[in-house]
């Protein structure tokens, strides 16, 4: 469904992404791993249009999307969450998700009709499924860190994406919260048949959950394959897993 070919991105002289390759098949749960500064977040920002690539191709559903602005990428069916909790802090939890559902249903430009009656069912369903239904009237900025991250995923779900990209969904979470978030991600993949691309630091989590793993180092892809293949890949062991 998604194919990234030889992607390049430099900031001044620093090559943040320098030859990244990635394949995501429909229905897969794909993880990107690599040490800090390997270019994982930059790769995600390139795919979703927050950054523009210097070279290479991003093919989504047989179309090159590497030149599209973020809102166009989103309309093609890719939604994402961010590494730092990226929500609408002054709006209620409900409104946070509703904004995204309204955009999905192309209602954002409606004037004169109250928003409170629109997209209520879909928004409530999403909040129910991520477990934030009882907090829906709280102002989003007052949520705990873990809940903010969950809310982020809920906002992304409002777009009814085909491909969901999660940038370190468990960053800064306690072990309990991490476990809850991972089981949420797995459940979403199962229930909604979502294709999910994510990056993560916790190795155990990744090797248990992902069906395919891509390894990055210094902006370059050094391997992609099934978990056991990657584990055995000697180059990966040297670069990332500390050798044996």
């Amino acid at each position, binding site marked *: 469904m998604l194919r990234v070919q030889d992607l390049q991105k430099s900031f001044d002289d620093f090559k943040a992404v320098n030859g990244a390759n990635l394949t995501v098949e429909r229905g897969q749960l794909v993880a990107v791993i690599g040490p800090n500064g390997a270019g994982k977040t930059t790769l995600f920002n390139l795919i979703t249009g927050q950054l523009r690539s210097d070279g290479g191709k991003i093919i989504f559903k047989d179309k090159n999307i590497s030149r599209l602005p973020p*809102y166009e990428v989103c309309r093609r069916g890719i939604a994402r969450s*961010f590494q730092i909790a990226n929500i609408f802090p002054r709006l209620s939890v409900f409104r946070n998700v509703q904004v995204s559902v309204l955009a999905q249903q192309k209602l954002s*430009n409606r004037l004169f009709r109250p928003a409170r009656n629109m997209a209520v069912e879909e928004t409530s369903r999403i909040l129910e499924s991520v477990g934030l239904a009882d907090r829906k009237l709280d102002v989003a900025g007052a949520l705990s860190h873990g809940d903010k991250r969950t809310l982020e995923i809920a906002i992304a779900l409002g777009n009814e994406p085909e491909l969901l990209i999660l940038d370190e969904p468990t960053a800064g979470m306690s072990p309990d919260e991490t476990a809850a978030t991972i089981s949420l991600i797995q459940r979403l993949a199962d229930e909604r048949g979502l294709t999910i691309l994510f990056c993560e630091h916790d190795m155990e989590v990744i090797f248990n959950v992902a069906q395919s793993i891509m390894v990055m180092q210094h902006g370059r892809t050094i391997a992609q394959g099934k978990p056991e293949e990657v584990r055995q890949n000697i180059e990966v062991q040297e670069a990332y897993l500390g050798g044996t």
Partner: protein
Amino acid sequence: MTIFRQKSFGAGIVLFVLLLAAPFFIPKFYTYILAVIFVTALLAMSLNLVVGHGGLFQFHHAAFYGVGAYTTGLILAKTSWPWLIGLIAGPVAAALVGLLIGMFCVRLNRLYFGMLQISLGSLVWAIAFRWYSLTGGDDGIHGIPMPGFISSLKGSYYFVLIALGISLILMYLIYKSPFGTTLQAIRDNAERCAAVGINVRRHQLMGIVIATFFAGVAGVLFVIVEGSIFPDLLFWVLSLEVFIMCLLGGWFTFAGPILGAAAIVSLRTFVGTHTDYWTLILGVILILLIFFLPDGIMGYNYRQKIRSWHKRTSEGRVV
């Protein structure tokens, strides 16, 4: 419609009826001041659409107020076109100029938006100030002929009051609509909005066009009350004053700017007659405001709400 079920809407109706009756009970001068407050309140409300709800630093909003006033004033004074065309042309011209200036400004962020906006707006002021043969330059144009029903003070008072009422209802509907909700979301986090499929710049531009349209309406109402136009209407000092009204009243609230406008116009009128240093008092009020009510007078409520939310979060669940 939900707007008619709001508690504050009931209070608004009572106030509206009181204001309808007011000209029969209060001296002419106060009727006039009330009309000036209405006009200024509408201007402040229109600015708050983009500043408070849209998060855009529209520093030179008075430019569009002036465009509305000049368009209507010039049509009424210099052409024999029907007056209705004159009244409608004001807001439309303001919205068009808003669209034109906005197209350049939305490409920039935050302060850069504000700087470009203030320069392009000043350009409009320069045209009104310099084009002597058309606009009367520094002098402006006075004694603009009005159609009969709004030529008296009472007539203009009622016209302005009703126009304000209709505008406020429209603005409230927009504020609560998906468009308004999305605009507030963009204010909170534009990057996230783009990532959920919203064309942020186009949305902001639409917000600017709506806000400048209502600024144009306020400009037309000014002409109706005063019967004159002059370049001060689109001078940046007025823009600053209107900005302060939004901050004073509470820029994250819907009706705050009305309060801010009423406060500043009254201050200028009643303290200004006693001392030329009334702006000094305004300055002191502003300093107190920044220290004690950083979200404005009506924003106090908002802050309390946030506080109780925070409290609930820290007590109710493990954070």
